[in-house]
């Protein structure tokens, strides 16, 4: 185990304030959110930027946590670890990555929604978010409901990719970027 490799990786791609790979639990998510609050305070981030970062972080990490819980409940094969990384780019924007393993069925459900999200502007996303919240669709759904709209609403850029592991399993990698220097 070479800690220097990790240190180098952290320094090379800008400053990562938080990186975790493994099983995610609510207590852990809450502890990491606390760490993010300390970082935001230290970096003197505005309250608007920092609450956007916390919300996106919570949404993505709870997605990973809830996804693995549903899989467990359905007695399907469980691989519940996820990867979550929060950092700051050289251009002063913040980024949050999440990655976990999902089935092909779930990829087929999420992918069209995300592809559509990429074509929508901020106002359209906000409008859709409120429509979905009002309609109560996916009401007790865990993730995949209004969660991605919540993230997109608060991000300046979102990206995602599905990487095939085998015909039934994919890595789902999601990226959210938040700029600090905004016009308004």
């Amino acid at each position, binding site marked *: 185990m070479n800690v220097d490799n990790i240190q180098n990786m952290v320094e090379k791609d800008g400053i990562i304030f938080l990186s975790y790979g493994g099983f995610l639990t609510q207590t852990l998510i*809450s502890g990491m959110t606390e760490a993010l609050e300390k970082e935001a305070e230290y970096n003197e981030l505005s309250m*608007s930027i920092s*609450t956007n970062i916390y*919300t996106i972080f*919570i949404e993505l990490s*709870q997605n990973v946590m809830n996804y693995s819980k549903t899989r467990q409940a359905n007695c399907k094969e469980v691989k519940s670890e996820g990867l979550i990384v929060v950092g700051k780019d050289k251009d002063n924007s913040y980024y949050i990555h999440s990655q976990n393993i999902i089935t092909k069925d779930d990829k087929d459900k999420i992918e069209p929604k995300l592809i559509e999200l990429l074509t929508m502007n901020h106002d359209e996303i906000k409008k859709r978010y409120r429509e979905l919240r*009002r309609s109560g669709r996916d009401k007790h759904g865990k993730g995949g*409901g209004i969660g991605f709209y919540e993230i997109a609403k608060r991000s300046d850029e979102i990206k995602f990719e599905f990487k095939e592991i085998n015909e039934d399993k994919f890595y789902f990698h999601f990226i959210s970027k938040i700029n600090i220097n905004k016009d308004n």
Partner: protein
Amino acid sequence: MENLIIEETKYTPSIKLNVQNRTIELIGKSYPENTFEFYKPMMDWIESYFNNNEDKDETTTVNVEIIYFNSSSSKLFFDFFDLIEEAHNKGKSIEVLWVYDEENESALEAGEDFKEDFEDINFTLVKKSLFICLSNCEELLGGYSRELIGCR
């Protein structure tokens, strides 16, 4: 009917539901693991409070100050305001104060969206600094301080 108090945690707000004072208060962050289960006692309490409360002239004050929340809490708050609107439409007198920090744009925006979604409710967005002043001044100024922030 008993009052209901749920202490604040790192990921759930402080909830204070008080029959005598006619206040419903939620303050803090909201990202529980199981949002609907967590808020069920509060939702049940509110439903029976408005069903039992026959005294229509007395106003119930709802103070909500949520710093940030996850998307399932956002849905839950929608259902929460839906309950309030239903009680309002049955003739209950209710005022909602959505308290936000001036620097927290997303809390203000969330309040604006709820205010628009529930047009029937007497819904006021209040800056936190003004709200603290209001709470402190109320004893001295009585109803006058409420008029200052636009509540009736």
